[in-house]
């Protein structure tokens, strides 16, 4: 066998870059979160403050509201993407003319920069220019103005996210569906299972790992969405779409409250991990418990 040291040498540059630009910032943020540090404050030096930043967080209604809104946004967006993505992936499993062409079109939104996605949807929804407010008013007499109505702004961000990210879910599930074994389906047919039963007892369990990984990736991304929403609504109206990423950004940069921003970042990261873990435990472990029967 060739010497291990050569192998480590090949890995070294990758590990070095990830350590310096990935791990080091993480340690830094962890340390800063225990300090009181605001460069605009009367005393701009770092002062150790223990868990004070974390204590403040619990009573910061602005932050808690933004967490709640982010969670709502994530749940609505990801659930719609999974359903829609599954539906499209199943349809892409069939053969039809121009399949490659249609697949390219349905992958396109995925390749667009989030900032450009935000810009596109702003052009669609801006009053006096966009077709959405114009036709909703003309055909249905519906007053659509996302700079005023919080609910509309919220649902527009969800729709934009679904438009942008459903292709990722479709591709993930499509890859999983194409690599699925045929036998269980044939067996189900022999046993006389109807379509719903086949879906529930055969397709879904086989597809579960792919669905789970799609949910995780999308949920993590939704919890950290900034660019698109910033371009579309700027976090408004009031704070209705000021999702947690935007909220942290405002505390850290315009207000330069570094210690507090660090604590918020860590809590958000922690909550994202907990959320994914709960989902994992709820969806995977429960089924495993049932197995022994």
């Amino acid at each position, binding site marked *: 066998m060739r010497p291990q040291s050569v192998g480590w040498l090949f890995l070294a540059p990758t*590990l070095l870059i990830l350590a310096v630009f990935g791990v080091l910032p993480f340690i830094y943020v962890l340390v800063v979160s225990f300090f009181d540090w605001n460069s605009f404050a009367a005393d701009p030096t770092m002062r150790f403050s223990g868990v004070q930043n974390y204590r403040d967080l619990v009573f910061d209604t602005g932050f808690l509201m933004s967490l709640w809104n982010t969670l709502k946004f994530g749940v609505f967006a990801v659930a719609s993407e999974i359903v829609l993505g599954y539906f499209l992936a199943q349809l892409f499993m069939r053969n039809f003319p121009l399949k490659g062409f249609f697949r390219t079109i349905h992958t*396109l939104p995925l390749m667009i920069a989030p900032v450009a996605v935000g810009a596109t949807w702003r052009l669609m929804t801006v009053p006096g220019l966009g077709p959405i407010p114009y036709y909703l008013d003309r055909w249905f007499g519906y007053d659509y103005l996302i700079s005023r109505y919080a609910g509309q702004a919220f649902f527009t961000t969800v729709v934009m996210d679904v438009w942008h990210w459903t292709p990722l879910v479709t591709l993930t599930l499509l890859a999983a569906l194409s690599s699925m074994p045929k036998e269980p389906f044939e067996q189900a047919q022999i046993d006389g299972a109807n379509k719903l039963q086949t879906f529930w007892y055969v397709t879904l369990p086989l597809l579960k790992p792919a669905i789970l990984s799609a949910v995780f990736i999308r949920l993590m991304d939704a919890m950290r969405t900034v660019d698109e929403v910033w371009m579309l609504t700027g976090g408004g109206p009031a704070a209705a779409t000021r999702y947690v990423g935007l909220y942290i950004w405002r505390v850290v940069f315009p207000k330069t409250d570094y210690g507090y921003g660090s604590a918020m970042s860590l809590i958000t990261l922690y909550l994202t991990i907990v959320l994914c873990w709960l989902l994992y435990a709820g969806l995977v472990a429960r089924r495993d418990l049932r197995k022994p029967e």
Partner: protein
Amino acid sequence: MKRDRKGLSLTFWLFSSLITLFPIYWMFCVSAKSRVELFGAPTFLIRSFFSENYWATLTNTSFQGYMFNSIVIATSNALLVTTLSLFATYALSRYKLSGKENIFFWTITNRMAPPAAFLLPLFLLYTQVFVIGDWKMFDTRIGLILLYCVFNLPFAIWTMRGVVDAIPQELDEAAFVDGASTWQVILHVILPLARPGLAVTAILTWVFAWNEYLFAATLTSVHARTITTGLAEFVTVTGTNWGQMAATAMLTLIPAIIFLSLVQKHIVAGLTFGAVKG
């Protein structure tokens, strides 16, 4: 009967494509119209192509700088990431390294953390710690190139692992028996066989780097600004020049469209390898 279903499926796909493409088409419409034409009812027809919007962006010197920066940063990052990921996956696939599966998994965790958590420490590191004399890593292209490795390298490694694993080990063993060095094996055995996978990886990492906004906006001020930050400035600073904003947005998505049509066939495997494996 069968013909009916075919017609139905075609209708469905056309309709669904229409919905998918509509926002992009509308942006194109806005980009092709003058300010005067944009008043009044939205129309989806382009009577005359108003190229002024595009020229205004393309001839703006600060925008030329942004575009140049974006091209340099995305290209260097894609080259660096594909090279390093080839080395890393070669090591992970061919050497018996202790704990290598843990390392493999650890790399992907770098992609999971919310960027908001990293903005502040990176900003501080770039302005106060990564400083050599008068030189700061803040507002430099190299700063962004190296930083984008944090989310592109894990992706590339997870994609390339399968590609390199699939190359039969007998091939490099045979080359070693013939007296080839490790470098020669990588260059003449692995590289040619991994080329399709490398191409998809390079293109996707290029697009990810080109599309990135948050870090570019936070860690640059003048010299290293990228095209996405330029686009965002349109909304926050100038506000209402919709035509030119749309033209700029169209310019940012042209490379993505070209690349997508190039790798369309391989993208399913490329984008989802990690998911299928996990």
